[in-house]
């Protein structure tokens, strides 16, 4: 028996190693409901422990290498390569001052927008808080496109947080350790992000392929999709807020597995192959820092002062209106209104009597004394006698303009 083990010890060790690993695989594998296998589910405690050890062993040297590299870059940029730094500093300060004012205004709009969205029961999210982190390492294999950040749960990171750069989305936090975090990049085969094409408004799911390209899969063939069209996050995946840039359409190819479907290859906006610094969206709830709060308070105070001034003006106008004599008083019954009060001096008395009555004088032609003659009975150029109210014959040699002379005299 002993000789058997000695003779076949190499094979036995090999089989033992293989058996142990196959059993381990069987324990780990979980199948999704759709029948598609995947490892995006949280690891079990044992597996997580192994990952933690491996990550702890590798991340410290990686951090050392990364810090050394960053230190060299910092030394070069801050002590050696200092051309035009002062001028840039002045320009940047001006830009900051301008942007702060703009930001305060935008934050107010955002807050108002969110209030309105709450009223409308919208589910969209705004980015309110991000955490900058450095990429320090990767999985080392192109079958698993993940990388590691130098921040972890101790810094407030959590699973399924979106990772972005200023250019566009990068991926999502897949696993979190105390001082590091694993990020699944959008060009991995197991990743998925809801996206929308900017102009055609066609929605799809973004994922990676074997070559490390990002593509939108499961889209019905559509001639409107052209290279160069922008791709944005759709916001329906509960990870990426809506409207973040994803990239541009690079090429449209037929789906090899399904007829009438196409794959849209997307060139990512973020440089996902060579990332140094990224932003992790840690909160989509409104939380403003002290400076932002101060700016908004100042802005609101200014707005409040304007509103107060307008109110003061309105109040003064009302006071003036109260002091002036009124013709109607809403608090009094109609028969006691100041208009009907005999003691109240009326601004308008009886109409003065005309010195020389004419056809326009009240009570003259068309007035009370003589009933108005219907216009249709008159003839053009016919003149009415003010005394009798009867038409008089028009003199043949008298111009019509002279008949208007008395009208001009009448005040």
């Amino acid at each position: 028996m002993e000789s058997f083990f000695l003779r076949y010890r190499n094979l036995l060790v090999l089989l033992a190693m293989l058996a142990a690993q196959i059993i381990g695989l069987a324990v780990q594998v979980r199948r999704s409901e759709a029948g598609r296998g995947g490892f995006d589910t949280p690891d079990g405690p044992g597996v997580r422990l192994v990952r933690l050890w491996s990550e702890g062993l590798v991340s410290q040297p990686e951090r050392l290498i990364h810090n050394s590299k960053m230190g060299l870059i910092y030394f070069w940029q801050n002590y050696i390569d200092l051309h035009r730094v002062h001028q840039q500093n002045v320009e940047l300060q001006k830009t900051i001052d301008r942007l702060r004012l703009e930001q305060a205004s935008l934050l107010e709009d955002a807050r108002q927008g969110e209030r309105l969205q709450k009223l409308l029961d919208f589910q969209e999210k705004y980015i309110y808080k991000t955490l900058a982190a450095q990429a320090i390492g990767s999985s080392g294999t192109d079958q698993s496109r993940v990388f590691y950040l130098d921040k972890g749960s101790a810094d407030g990171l959590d699973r399924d947080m979106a990772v972005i750069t200023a250019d566009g989305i990068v991926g999502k936090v897949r696993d979190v350790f105390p001082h590091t975090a694993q990020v699944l990049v959008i060009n991995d085969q197991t990743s998925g992000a809801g996206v929308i094409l900017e102009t055609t408004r066609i929605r799809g799911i973004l994922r990676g392929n074997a070559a490390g390209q990002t593509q939108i899969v499961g889209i019905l063939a559509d001639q409107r999709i052209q290279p160069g069209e922008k791709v944005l996050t759709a916001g329906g995946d509960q990870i990426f807020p809506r409207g973040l840039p994803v990239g541009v359409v690079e090429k449209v190819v037929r789906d090899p597995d399904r007829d009438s479907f196409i794959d849209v290859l997307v060139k990512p906006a973020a440089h996902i192959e060579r990332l140094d610094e990224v932003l992790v969206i840690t909160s989509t709830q409104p939380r403003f820092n002290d400076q932002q709060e101060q700016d908004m308070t100042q802005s609101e105070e200014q707005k409040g002062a304007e509103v107060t001034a307008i109110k003061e003006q309105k109040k003064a106008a009302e006071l003036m209106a109260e002091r002036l004599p009124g013709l109607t008083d809403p608090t009094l019954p109609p028969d006691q209104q100041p208009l009907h009060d005999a003691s109240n001096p009326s601004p308008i008395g009886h109409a003065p009597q005309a010195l020389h009555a004419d056809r326009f004088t009240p009570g003259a032609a068309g007035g009370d004394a003589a009933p108005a003659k219907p216009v249709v009975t008159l003839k053009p150029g016919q003149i009415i006698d003010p005394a009798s109210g009867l038409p008089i014959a028009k003199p043949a040699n008298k111009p019509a303009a002279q008949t208007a002379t008395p009208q001009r005299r009448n005040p």
Partner: protein
Amino acid sequence: MSVLSADTRRDLEIHRYPVLVYSLVPLVALVLQAWLPRVVGRYVWFDLPMVVTVYFALGRRSPIQGTLLGGGLGLFEDALSHHAIGINGIAKTIAGFLAASVGVRIDVENHTIRLALNFLLSLLCSGIYLFIYRFLLGMELEWSWFTELMKAMGNSVIALILFPLLDKTQIRD
């Protein structure tokens, strides 16, 4: 500095290394494998733990050591990825075993043999990985044989440079 004990039967044929080399080189390979893709981008056409496994399996000429080293490095690689732990482990376990088994029978100092072995074992490793992923686990995986071919070639080129350097760390009587 202490050295690893050699098999008594083939004591003269077995390469021996300082413990520091035997422990640090695999660790450095793991760290560089994890860090270099940040520098070279998508062209990750190398697998340093694989090269190190083949080197030590050939040098030590012990299938057990080759199996354990390959399995250990593969498991570490798996743990750094987001896939199940064991896929690379199984592939490199077999690669380490085969490299050591071949090393007993051939001249491992020959550069051509080293290059060919690295190339073939890398391709075998890729094939085992694909087999486990698709057939053993039944999961979908798009595969690019071009990338695997490039990786095998990259491993061979690295082996040509790295093996002579590591040979210099051998303990010679």
